[in-house]
């Protein structure tokens, strides 16, 4: 079951996202894919990572992977459990969160995120969950990591609704607005997908820096709605290790909820 020679694109995505958390101290865990990526990081590259859940938990030690980000296993054995006004006010808005880890339905080249609606807000084609804590995480976490699968529907030239601000219209623009507005966060810094790893260049635009094993530039371009920028030193992401795969398959997601 844990044959490292064969792994899914989702497994590679989760592993790459987890590795991105090496050396980080305090991470705000979003619902869905970020949840499994962060829990994998805690078991591998970042054992001292402090997990913060918007439900009001600091220093969580989940004994199992919580299906929801509100689960009794994130409470038992945690360092602190506080009300949500304290969690969002005293921890996030105060600037104590190093990394906010988000998923997204739509993202543009500047890392602006939509999790609210596809189509017109008043008459949506598809109603999405909305902000939750994403809007304030994008503004107040010191930096933001994004994990999501690539597709023409999700990587778009123009998002239908801006739920969480990224680099806005570009770096110059964003840096000035964040500075003048007293935002504590510098915005998105890493985007991990099922095909590769992106960072943001000096224009604040997403740049492909590493391609996952088996993924091709063609596949990347086919699933992005703009002419994506590719690093001149494009790397290949090291494949998942046997241990990383074992943790995902046997401990974190035996049901395959995240990796199917």
């Amino acid at each position, binding site marked *: 079951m844990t044959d490292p020679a064969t792994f899914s694109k989702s497994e590679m995505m989760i592993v790459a996202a987890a590795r991105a958390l090496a050396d980080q101290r305090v991470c705000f865990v979003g619902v869905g894919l970020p949840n499994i990526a962060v829990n994998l990081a805690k078991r591998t590259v970042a054992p001292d990572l402090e997990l913060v859940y918007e439900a009001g938990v600091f220093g969580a030690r989940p004994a199992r992977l919580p299906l929801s980000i509100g689960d009794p296993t994130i409470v038992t054995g945690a360092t602190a459990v506080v009300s949500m006004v304290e969690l969002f006010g005293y921890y996030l*808005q105060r600037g104590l969160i190093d990394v906010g880890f988000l998923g997204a339905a739509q993202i543009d080249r500047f890392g602006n995120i939509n999790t609210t609606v596809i189509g017109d807000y008043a008459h949506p084609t598809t109603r999405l969950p909305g902000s939750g804590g994403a809007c*304030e995480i994008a503004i107040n976490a010191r930096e933001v990591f994004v994990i999501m699968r690539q597709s023409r529907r999700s990587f778009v030239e123009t998002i239908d609704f801006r739920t969480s601000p990224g680099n806005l219209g570009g770096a110059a623009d964003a840096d000035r607005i964040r500075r003048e507005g007293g935002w504590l966060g510098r915005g998105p810094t890493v985007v991990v997908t099922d095909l590769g790893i992106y960072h943001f260049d000096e224009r604040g635009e997403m740049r492909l820096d590493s391609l996952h094993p088996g993924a091709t530039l063609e596949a990347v371009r086919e699933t992005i709605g703009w002419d994506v920028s590719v690093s001149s030193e494009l790397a290949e992401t090291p494949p998942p290790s046997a241990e990383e795969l074992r943790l995902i398959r046997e401990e974190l997601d035996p049901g395959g909820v995240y990796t199917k």
Partner: protein
Amino acid sequence: MHDAVADLVRDGDTVAIEGFTHLISFAAGHEIIRQGKRNLTLARLTPDLVYDQMIAAGVARKLVFSWLGNPGVGGLGAIRRRIEGEIPDQPLEIEEYSHFGMVGRYTAGAMNLPFFPLRSYFQTDLPVVNPLIRPIRSPYGDETIYAVPPLRPDVTIIHAQRASAAGDTQVWGLLGCQKEAAFAADRVIVVVEELVDEDVIRADPNRTIIPGLIVDAVVVEPWGAHPSYVQGAYDRDNRFYLDWDPISRDEAATQAWLREWVHGVEGRAGYLDKLGAERLASLRPGAAAPSGIVDYGSYR
């Protein structure tokens, strides 16, 4: 529960059944459905399955929220269909914030403040679609941030581990924003796993989140939060949340579920019987995880 809902929840009320994934009073939600309340404005950060069921049952005309989904599973079909206009005879008005915005709204209500200031919404479309999210200028320097208005529910309903007959309520585990939602409300219903003697409360006053002073009714309803959970008492019934996904995707299946599990049972006791002892037993936590004791000391 029947009397508490009959006496305190009125057609047209703004109702908040709060509890962030933890301590969600499904028992109260189902009773509101059975009593056929109408035109409610339902407020919750995460509508969750409880509001998907209540809105499918037609009790609400408006939803105030910040994250609309089945956590870790998917969407909430009944609510989504009404927002997307698929059920023309049951339109659903929505008013949308972020989590901190909703928490701030309850906090402003609890503190009797005309607004709550926060550093959210900058450069987003949320204030565009919700004109109640407004900029506010600091009287110190020229900084402008955002404000949200107070949310003052007519009725707030929360579930807790324990309360005294007087309504002094204690909770451990996730606290969400129940305290804020309760202090913000005009009327408060507390549903508990266990009714305890006043002395149990007074032995650990730092554990009290809500005083009986603001509580209008205490209802004893063990397992009343299923399929959500109660720290130390029972686990989140993830299977239920997963099973809800296909039901919720189909309006007919959703209505059939309501007939069978809400209208078709004799109150909460009937629901639990139907669920079965085995299912419930499987949700009990493993070993105990005791908090330990602290000493307040006797001072005479």
